[in-house]
């Protein structure tokens, strides 16, 4: 980690969740980073900053105290981090060159200050197609997923998904079998995930990258599952919705959020059986059928190339 990255880690990491001093939330960090940038300062200058400098940045006494307290966590956080590192889990922050660029470009201040990750981080630089959908799938859903993933693969895309049961797993496994790269933005339980022999093998082959914005051993929370949907969309050139429930569940709200904020083009299986899918198509999702050719660039209107932002 470079020194700016160290500071982001100290301020934003939740590894020491049981301390009474709350780490900065993404929006809080973004606000602080903006102020630093405007004043021509870098995060690494925070530890030696005087009260008056904090004052000039319009940071109150209470907030200053909190920042200073968070900055003192260095030794403790290093101990915690080492436990995860010994398993093969690392940290990447917004101040690191390896941070997923698509996320920075598309989510701006809303992208998480840091990710825990396992696997080859450079995979996040590949062009990806997202896959989302229900945890409960039938054989037809499975076939649709496998067929379209294979077409997408053949065009050289990596697959990005949430690593959950159902559509996510089928999409990921298909791509891995085809020898393609897979990126999973996990919502929970990264530590448990990396004990699977298949996951170990795929990571060691350099085919799989796991990312998590939450503590690697944290269990499932709905909030975290919602957040990571956005990362999948932001990471992808286009995302395929295989099956969404109507007006309920993560797939539905994630897709609606993406369409509303125009994060990335949403492709949706045009199956008249699924009311959720039909509703998404009405909202603006691009309908695709079983014979879709996997070309996510063929659109009613082209998405702009991601803009490079120097965002810390």
């Amino acid at each position, binding site marked *: 980690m470079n020194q700016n990255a160290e500071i982001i880690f100290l301020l934003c990491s939740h590894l020491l969740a049981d301390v009474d001093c709350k780490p900065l939330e993404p929006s809080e960090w973004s606000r602080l980073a903006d102020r630093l940038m405007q004043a021509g300062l870098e995060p690494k200058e925070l530890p030696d900053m005087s009260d008056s400098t904090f004052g000039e940045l319009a940071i109150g006494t209470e907030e200053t105290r909190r920042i200073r307290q968070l900055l003192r966590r260095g030794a403790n956080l*290093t101990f915690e981090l080492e436990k995860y590192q010994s398993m093969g889990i690392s940290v990447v922050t917004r101040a690191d060159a390896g941070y997923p660029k698509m996320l920075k470009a598309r989510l701006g201040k809303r992208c998480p200050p840091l990710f825990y990750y396992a696997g080859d981080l450079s995979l996040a630089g590949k062009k990806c197609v997202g896959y989302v959908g229900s945890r409960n799938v039938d054989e037809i859903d499975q076939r649709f997923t496998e067929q379209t993933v294979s077409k997408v693969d053949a065009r050289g895309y990596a697959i990005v998904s949430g690593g959950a049961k159902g559509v996510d797993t089928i999409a990921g496994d298909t791509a891995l079998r085809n020898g393609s790269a897979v990126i999973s933005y996990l919502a929970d339980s990264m530590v448990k995930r990396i*004990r699977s022999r298949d996951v170990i093998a795929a990571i060691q082959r350099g085919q799989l990258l796991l990312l998590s914005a939450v503590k690697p051993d944290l269990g499932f929370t709905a909030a975290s599952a919602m957040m990571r949907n956005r990362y999948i969309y932001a990471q992808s050139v286009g995302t395929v919705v295989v099956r969404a429930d109507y007006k309920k569940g993560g797939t539905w709200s994630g897709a609606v959020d993406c369409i509303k904020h125009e994060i990335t083009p949403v492709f949706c299986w045009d199956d008249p059986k699924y009311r959720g899918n039909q509703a998404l198509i009405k909202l603006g999702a691009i309908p695709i059928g079983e014979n879709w050719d996997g070309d996510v660039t063929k659109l009613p209107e082209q998405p702009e190339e991601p803009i490079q932002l120097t965002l810390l």
Partner: protein
Amino acid sequence: MDAMIHARASEILRTIYGADATFREGQYEAIEATLTHHRTLVVQKTGWGKSLVYFVCTKLLRDQGQGVTMVVSPLLVLMENQLASAEAMGLHCAVLNSTTKDRRQEQLDAMRAGELDLVLITPETLFTDEVQAALPSIPIGLFVIDEAHCISDWGHDFRLEYTRLYRIIRQMPKTVPVLGTTATANDRVIADLKQQLGDDVYISRGELMRRSLSIQILPLSTSAERYAWILENVPRLPGSGIIYCLTQRDCDYLADFLQKNGIRAVAYHSGLEQTETNDAEQRLRENQIKVLVATIKLGMGYDKGDISFVIHYQQPSNIVAYYQQIGRAGRSIDRAYTFLMCGEEDRMIQEYFIETAFPSEQEARAVYDAVLSHAEEGITGRAVEGLVNIRKARVDKALMFLRNEEIIVKDGARYYPTLHPFRYDRAHYEAIKAVRYREQQQMRELVHTQGCLSRFVVNCLDDTTAEDCGICRNCLGYPEYPEHPGMDALRIAQTYLERLILPIEPRKQFPSKDFTGVFKIPVPNHEGLCLSKYGDPGYGMLVKQGKYGTPPGFCEELIGKSATVLRDVVRTHGITAVTCVPSLRSTIVADLAEALAQRLRLPFVQLLEKHGTRQQKDMENSYHQCRNAWRSFACIPDISMPARVILVDDIVDSRWTMTVCGYLLTQAGCESVFPFALADSSENRGNET
């Protein structure tokens, strides 16, 4: 800023040591470097005042509202005068190690509440689950690594805690001040420490010569000569001291020999119970014993100011270790004596340690595959043994190695693979071996140098400022203590060593079939006897010659000695017959048993028979040995069973053969079984610590 540090630091010094007190050369600079976000490394000899540096830093940091100072040290006993100066500064200190375990929770609570200013903690304690769980809520203001040379890349032998410390320090954010201290470091160690602390590390380095220590070399090649010299000279040495041995077994024997000859000696190594070693430390501290016979375990956890002598029973592995160990002596007294015994045998032992330090690639691979095959649910060490045919000690070594390389992790009692792929960096391990051989070579050069011995040692540690000490054997031009033992002492030692007999501890249970549980043996064997350590000089060598001689057969000396030893057994245990472990390959064991029976005037009866099988010595670990032994033996049908028998074998290793044979005999009606073997070939107690 720095002027302020200087003013405050000087003020603190004066409040403790009076208005005239000034810092010793380098002390203030080290304090300032530590407090201004530098990585700092202090390489200064014992007594220079390294602890004062971190006491003053702690005081200043605590005044600023920073967290506790954590001093990680394998050497935990702060000397009285050091503690007194810490307290004079108003610092609240605590020691966290295995001996303060019962107060642990209380201490951790005090740390959470910010009531403690400085804690000394061993790496082992630091990485216990209990401390790790508490750590997130204890702010740390300063991180000190005492005896920092221990974490140097080459310096550790899979002491996992040191590897973890190494990794942690390397990536500690620049916001945390880190101070490393050591009295023992050559350029290589310093370069290595520099690498992990970062290139901008501030190094404080002074002369290392300890003027209170004299060195005398004792070229004595046999155990008997060394035993005799110690017996004769330890009572003539002032005060109390330490004898360092390379293996646990050497400590046990030598301590026993000295006790039997009226010298208050106690063994000290990691094969003993915690209570025993604590007791030994206590007794040495209170000068209730003359000498502690210890492995290097002692160097890592003990401090006493008035140790008057240190004797090396064998050559240590390198100068760094040697300097560290002789440095135990003469800390708060004007004069202390150190003796280094040496001979060809030492080289063989050292080479053994160097050669076996790393698991082979095959061993590491096999153990890794076993762990990988149970990735999801994890696997225990015992279960790994069930899957691979590798000696337990080697399985343990491979597990440590794999953990150290972060290829596997341990969570609770189970091992899991990590995401790091299996790798075996043969070239790297060979390079480490080569360094160790070079360091051993340096020890041999020390033994033969004609110049000042102390100067040679500190020169090896890259301190070139030293002058001749004036008090070592070479400076004086004559030995202060005799170089050879007298004939009387030599005879006593020889007699003792010849009578050394090893116990054969009975196994009390069998592993169950799937190795997940155990099955208790209703009538375990009696504790048996074994004449020698296989291959050791003396009887051990005769056994080896007998087994592989042409024709094979054990000599009269072995038979005579065995009969002498067993005569007592026959009398005290009411033995009624002699039998032996059957063999399909040769008759040497049966011949031996028959010869013994004749001398003991007892009947020899063949009670057991053997089926064809793999040789037990090809079975590497307990699980496989036990399974093999089970398949190999049976009682001869319808034989009339004697009441109490001596069960003879030539070589005992895992003890499973003796255990299974004993079980079969007692199941068939024998009352008790007394095992006897000529030699023990197990690796037990050959440990280094």
